[in-house]
């Protein structure tokens, strides 16, 4: 009899040890998941630890549903301008039409346009930039307006960046997307504003490398 009781106690001890490890593991992972959305990590940890209390599993379950369908701070436009947020899904925040830049002090005599060429997994992309057009918007969505240049790739934001032309120069401004914008390999952040890329050789939108050349 004593042996059976000891065996049972051992069994319960083992299962409760497993339950403890599983709960700690789940709480840690919930902390990390919740943090990635911009919410405080302790909220995820607390939701898991709630299962240990008398309220049972229904409250954490409700919290899971709330978490899945709530607004995440990661997706707020204010966060996106920090440079590491997500591209606004569905594009409700269409940017204002490109505005003309003041003429640079040293205007260039060369008034040819530019062309951006690159290859995508689904084929090649070639974009023509007319120097007489004030500006363009680079977007991952299909071009819907005359000023939009489409780079159909999931890593390209919708919209992703803005191109401006003035006095024979070409400017590039990042609009704060997850994939990021790079000029010759250097990261361009939204707070940098428009940068002159007339002399640049390539720009990168997300994972798409585009070679810049005069048309």
């Amino acid at each position, binding site marked *: 009899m004593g042996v059976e009781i000891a065996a049972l106690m051992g069994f319960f001890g083992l299962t409760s040890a497993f339950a403890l490890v599983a709960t700690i593991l789940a709480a840690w992972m919930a902390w990390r*998941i919740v*943090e990635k959305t911009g919410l405080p990590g302790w909220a995820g940890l607390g939701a898991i630890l709630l299962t240990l209390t008398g309220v049972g599993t229904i409250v954490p*379950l409700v919290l899971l549903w709330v978490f*899945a369908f709530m607004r*995440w701070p990661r997706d707020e436009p204010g966060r996106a301008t*920090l*440079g*590491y*947020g997500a*591209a606004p899904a569905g594009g409700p925040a269409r940017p204002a039409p490109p505005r003309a830049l003041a003429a640079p002090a040293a205007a260039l005599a060369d008034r040819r346009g530019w062309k951006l060429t690159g290859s995508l997994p689904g084929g090649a992309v070639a974009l023509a930039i007319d120097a007489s057009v004030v500006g363009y918007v680079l977007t991952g969505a299909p071009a819907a307006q005359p000023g939009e240049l489409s780079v159909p790739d999931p890593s390209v934001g919708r919209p992703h960046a803005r191109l401006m032309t003035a006095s024979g120069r070409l400017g590039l401004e990042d609009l704060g997307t997850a994939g990021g914008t790079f000029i010759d390999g250097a990261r361009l952040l939204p707070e940098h504003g428009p940068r002159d890329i007339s002399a640049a050789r390539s720009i990168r939108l997300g994972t798409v490398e585009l070679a810049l050349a005069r048309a």
Partner: protein
Amino acid sequence: MTYVVAWILGLGTLALLFLAIAHLLVALVLIIPTWRICTRAGFSGALSLFHLVPVIGSFIVMAVLAFSDWPAGEASPARR
């Protein structure tokens, strides 16, 4: 005797069937929100189907979400 065995087998099958249906329902309650979380993170929603795996399925989904870099972007580290 044969009848008793048949009864036991029948009841056992019925119990297993109910168990399977209950498991499916519970998994569905987890899969629907997790599907949305996975797609918002940039993964395929089908990743949430791991909840159908008994016992360790939920841990697999959580581990993938917790220890990977989300393709759709994460909140900036400065906010953590």
